[in-house]
């Protein structure tokens, strides 16, 4: 199908984008790799598209005060090739090859993926696993939202109507940081049937501060807190048994299959978490 007609405007600054969002039915166009698909299918029919692709100040990766800050317009391909991300945000580096396909990663942006909040997407779960935060800019200036407070429901976030997601921040990895990532998809690069992003701190021979963030098993990425506690005691079998996810059947798999696969992924990711960082 073809998109319904809409007006289009290139924003010249974040402030202008914020002001334009006051219009009814206005949507931001970043990488467009989800939005334009929904326009083509007429699942979405905004009155005005505000193209923010010209806002170079929103793209870039930097370490600031112990955190890795990634500008919202940073494209997946830039994060995938970034040495800084590989060293300081290894969980995001591990997730990157699973996000779409090369042609998608050339256009798609990290901010767009987080703001879209697809429940089966990789980056929202990475942010939750890393206890990351989201910077939003609105009419009253900037504010910071913790990842755990950002994802509210199915494709629903804490962003206000006139707010632009301008950056994401995750703690820079230290020597004792451990991360794990795995997902199962019908085809490499497709949305996951189930996926798991995890972070932890090496603590002697064991792990502490374990955060397991599943995606594809609910309306938002979800922590498996009981499994985190069991894993902290070093018992992988107990952690798998403690998984208390409540997925629904969807077009890809039944809830029972998803629960089984969540256990498979936990075993794989637990192994990654226990590996020393190279």
């Amino acid at each position, binding site marked *: *199908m073809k998109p319904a007609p*809409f007006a289009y405007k290139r924003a010249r600054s974040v402030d202008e984008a914020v002001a334009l969002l006051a219009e009814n039915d206005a949507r931001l166009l970043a990488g467009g790799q989800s939005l*334009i*698909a929904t326009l083509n299918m007429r699942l979405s029919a905004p009155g005005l598209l505000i193209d923010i692709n010209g806002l170079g100040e929103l793209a870039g990766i930097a370490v600031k005060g112990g955190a890795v800050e990634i500008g919202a317009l940073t494209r997946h*391909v830039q994060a995938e090739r970034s040495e800084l991300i590989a060293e300081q945000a290894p969980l995001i580096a591990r997730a990157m090859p699973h996000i*779409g396909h*090369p*042609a998608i990663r050339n*256009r798609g942006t990290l901010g767009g993926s987080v703001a879209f909040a697809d429940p089966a997407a990789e980056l929202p779960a990475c942010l939750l696993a890393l206890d990351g935060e989201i910077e939003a800019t609105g009419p009253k200036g900037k504010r910071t939202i913790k990842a755990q407070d950002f994802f509210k429901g199915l494709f629903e976030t804490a962003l206000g109507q006139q707010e632009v997601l301008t950056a994401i921040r995750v703690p820079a990895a230290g020597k004792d940081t451990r991360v794990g990532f795995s997902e199962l998809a019908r085809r490499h690069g497709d949305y996951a049937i189930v996926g798991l992003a995890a972070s932890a701190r090496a603590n002697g021979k064991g792990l502490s501060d374990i955060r397991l963030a599943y995606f594809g098993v609910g309306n938002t990425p979800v922590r498996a807190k009981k499994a985190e506690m069991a894993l902290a005691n070093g018992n992988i079998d107990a952690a798998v048994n403690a998984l208390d996810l409540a997925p629904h059947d969807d077009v890809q798999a039944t809830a029972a299959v998803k629960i089984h696969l969540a256990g498979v992924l936990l075993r794989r990711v637990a192994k990654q978490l226990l590996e020393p960082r190279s």
Partner: protein
Amino acid sequence: MSGVAFDISLTVNGERVHERVDARKTLADFLREDLALTGTHIGCEHGVCGACTLRVNGEIVRGCLMLAVQCEGARVETIEGMSDSGEVADLQTAFERRNALQCGYCTPGMIAAAQDLLKRGGLPTRDEIREHLSGNYCRCTGYHAIVDAVEAVAQARAKGR
């Protein structure tokens, strides 16, 4: 300026193009309908099948997931341009020789994605070839012949270097 139709200037296969387009027109539709460059195929129109893969500013993208109006000032290269320059002639020959196509609908996107991998140099493994082509559906061949063709060209190019 906010509106529903825009004048755009861009380069398509090395030629300057000036056209007026509706904001809602995708790059793939613009190339096919306004410029009669029908080598860019349209399959799913939501970024899944890869039939519309082409290059914008040197990087492969989905033609159905970009708007033409976003290509102001861009350098667009379609399968027609890649064919005419001879850049993908060896890939085209290998696809033909190894039966890496039957109906041919996916082939322009497949060649564009394969060339994107091969132009980086090196000798990709079969797994790397499969991964790089993972965003391109082929409903005829079962993919083996396509991987064979791309691998053969990678080896031939490596020898020629």
